[in-house]
């Protein structure tokens, strides 16, 4: 090989070097699972965290990012959203949550994610690297979290998927296609209020007792479905003659085997008590979500080891006579009870405010470190992906954010770099592009 050829080969090797290997220098690392490490370096190799220490020397040719004075945190995890499945919440054609039917355990959120959604760059801008997508919706018209299994609505809404907030395809974004089975736990149907009356909708002429009976019937339907799924499980195991694959029951097997939790969306203490009872009777793993009134159920949740996905702290109190700061103090109360919890944005348009939800809870009593955990390591553990994400530890994926100030929950702190599996992620969005464009309009 002549000299020129050799040079070209080296150049080729350099440009072909994977861009998920680099050294981040001069930073303070906040592992979350351990104390912060000041003035250090962080080595990422093949998309994973390889080494943290002040004296790491970058091998020749390795990319070095000088981020002096900046802070490295694990990327945030949003535990309940429909980002990427809900582009404009009031335009049904752009919403892919909320399938028709009572039992849909076979449907999977991940396959309906639009990787080109304008929402992903926006949430990345404020530090979210992973999210759990709820097939039943999380605020949009496609079946809001608020639609809590009343009337003839859905019961099992499908498989919640955990995805990264960046990737060329939904497959590349996927962290785990099925981290939970979303259930709209039966509740008393809501009485259409003034607004419905205005639209000329009829208010049902039914008694509270009738509606409560309907609710209990629906809980029984849910239990019956579980029983049927168990029969299917047995028939399959026994290789019974004439056994035929049923996609709905097939999808329930991981739930029956205790590998995937039921994500029970239930909002009042009455419903929470029934969720606990249901989990006991069915002997399945349960994650509770969307509750805004726990009442005295926290000790039971703790005893049964049921984790909780807390809705936005930016809510009005559940009842008129509740304390004005009830939704703000709730995370602190839950922490004190010992129940494991994580935050979810429960929507799309305000998904970028996930860190501020956590911070607001700190102002009203949640210890700071716990607020950070509730959007990093806690959700990673609840969703069974703590071996890969949720903290900065050797061997975990390099899902990282680098911030200009220490506190990543404060509004004025900016995310300057983001990495997902060690790949640098674009932090511009439609919003930043339009800002540049229209600021410069002559």
């Amino acid at each position, binding site marked *: 090989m002549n000299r020129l050829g050799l040079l070209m080969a080296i150049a080729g090797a350099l440009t072909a070097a994977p861009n998920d290997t680099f050294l981040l220098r001069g930073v303070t690392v906040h592992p979350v699972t351990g104390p912060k490490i000041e003035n250090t370096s962080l080595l990422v190799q093949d998309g994973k965290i390889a080494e943290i220490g002040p004296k790491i020397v970058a091998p020749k040719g390795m990319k070095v990012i000088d981020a002096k004075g900046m802070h490295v945190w694990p990327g945030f995890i949003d535990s309940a959203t429909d980002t990427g499945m809900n582009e404009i919440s009031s335009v049904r054609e752009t919403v892919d949550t909320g399938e028709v039917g009572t039992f849909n355990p076979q449907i999977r959120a991940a396959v309906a994610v639009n990787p080109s959604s304008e*929402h992903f760059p926006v949430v990345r801008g404020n530090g979210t690297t992973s999210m759990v997508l709820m097939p039943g919706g999380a605020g949009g018209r496609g079946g809001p979290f608020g639609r809590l299994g009343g009337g003839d609505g859905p019961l099992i809404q499908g498989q919640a998927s955990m995805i990264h907030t960046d990737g060329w395809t939904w497959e590349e974004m996927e962290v785990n296609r099925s981290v939970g089975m979303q259930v709209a736990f039966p509740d008393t149907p809501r009485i259409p209020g003034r607004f419905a009356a205005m639209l000329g*909708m009829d208010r049902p002429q039914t008694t509270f007792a009738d509606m409560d009976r309907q609710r209990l019937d629906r809980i029984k339907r849910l239990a019956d479905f579980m029983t049927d799924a168990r029969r299917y499980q047995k028939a399959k195991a026994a290789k019974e003659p004439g056994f035929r694959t049923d996609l709905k029951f097939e999808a329930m097997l991981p739930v029956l085997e205790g590998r995937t939790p039921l994500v029970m969306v239930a909002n009042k203490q009455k419903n929470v008590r029934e969720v606990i009872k249901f989990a006991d009777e069915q002997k399945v793993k349960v994650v509770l979500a969307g509750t805004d009134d726990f009442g005295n159920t926290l000790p039971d949740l703790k005893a049964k080891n049921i984790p909780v996905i807390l809705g936005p702290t930016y809510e009005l109190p559940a009842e008129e006579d509740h304390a004005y700061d009830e939704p703000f103090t709730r995370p602190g109360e839950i922490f004190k009870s010992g129940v494991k919890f994580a935050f979810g944005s429960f929507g799309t348009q305000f998904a970028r405010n996930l860190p501020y939800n956590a911070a607001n809870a700190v102002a009203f009593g949640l210890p700071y470190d716990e607020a950070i955990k509730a959007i990093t390591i806690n959700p990673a553990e609840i969703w069974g992906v703590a071996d890969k994400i949720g903290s900065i530890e050797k061997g975990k994926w390099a899902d990282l954010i680098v911030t200009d100030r220490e506190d990543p929950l404060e509004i004025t702190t900016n995310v300057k770099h983001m990495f997902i599996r060690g790949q640098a992620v674009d932090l511009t969005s439609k919003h930043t592009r339009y800002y540049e464009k229209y600021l410069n309009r002559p």
Partner: protein
Amino acid sequence: MRIAILLAGIAAGLAAQTVVLQNGTIMTVTKGTFKGAIVIKDGKIVEVGDKVLVPTGAQVIDATGQYIIPGIIDCHSHIAVESINEGSVSVSAMVGVGDNINPEEIEIYRALAGGVTTANVLHGSANAIGGKNVVLKMRWGKDAEALRFEGAKPGIKFALGENPKRQGNPTQPGQRARYPATRMGVEDVIRDAFTEAKSYQASWKEYEERSKRGERALPPRRDLKLEALVEVLEGKRLVHAHCYRADEILMLIRTADEMGFKIKTFQHVLEGYKVAKEIAAHGAGGSTFSDWWAYKAEAYDAIPYNAAIMHKKGVLVSLNSDSAELMRRLNTEAGKVMKYGGLTENEALAMVTINPARQLEIDNRVGSIEAGKDADLVVYDKNPLSVYAKVQKVFIDGTKYFDRDTDISERNRKALEKKRLLDAEKARQDEQKKQGMPPARRTGE
């Protein structure tokens, strides 16, 4: 002697009304930020400075380590009224939300607990020209009349885009369509209404002139709808126009130019950043959300930099809530314009205090901490632009309407009171049962 005693009595009374907030960081908004004191007398701020003389007998409140800002003003709210949308017609200028104030709505107290002292309570956005507004002070515990911001300039709601179009495009079977169904129709409704208002105005002028000349003339029949629009033409009533897209904003500016009136504020105005130049040239303000977007088609181009761009291009900008929930944390909404667009702390804070005061033309009374203004003040434990700040105390007209410590210490008593009432009710029902009366049937109300 009697007079002397009387005078002494009055002096004592006045002294009791004097309150000094001391040692806090005072963010005046218009006169800088400094450590100092505020002297409040008879509901007004009488002195502000780094050093003030504490009047003898004044009640001194120590605010060491705390931050004091002017009461927050929400330029777009729908709280404390029983109904907001008279949507059966395309022009409902004859109605006003001030006619159905509910002073017992808990949202008033919650807003107060979030530092809001004044709210621009608007009619809804169901029609191109909506009803009249009412500006309220959050004087929790007072009756409906006492909530009104006395002397506030009256206003009216306009609405463009999807909301006024909606009833032209019925979604419910059997629902009748109401004109307009398009943005073209919205423009027509406004032009037509003002054409009518101008001729109504002219007929009154003609009547007055003929009367002045001593001629016998019949007065025109009063038209309450057109009367409100004539007030707009004469600059006596402020127009607060709900809008989203740049095209409709520009349309309303040109319609207003043609008809000879001014838009005081564009509300929501999420694409205001695209036509900031035109809005500034008209002299209108923009009252917007910090970071709402994509909840409807016309909000898909909304960006959180909207407030910053409009501000940089010369538009007077405020940040509003349009929500009883968001209303409680407008301070951090202001914090967001420091992030999105790099505005200063003072520019940010102005967007929830002095700017909305100017937009409502009540800035002679509220919106900043200055001698002579109403003592509407909020005390925070931390810098109010931080997401960790909590409201500690709120004063309106020098009277304390919210105190976090009191709120917390009262909770036990309230819980006991609630239990007592529930127990009494249960006992009453048990007694009824004993007497063989059927239990009350709960219906789905």
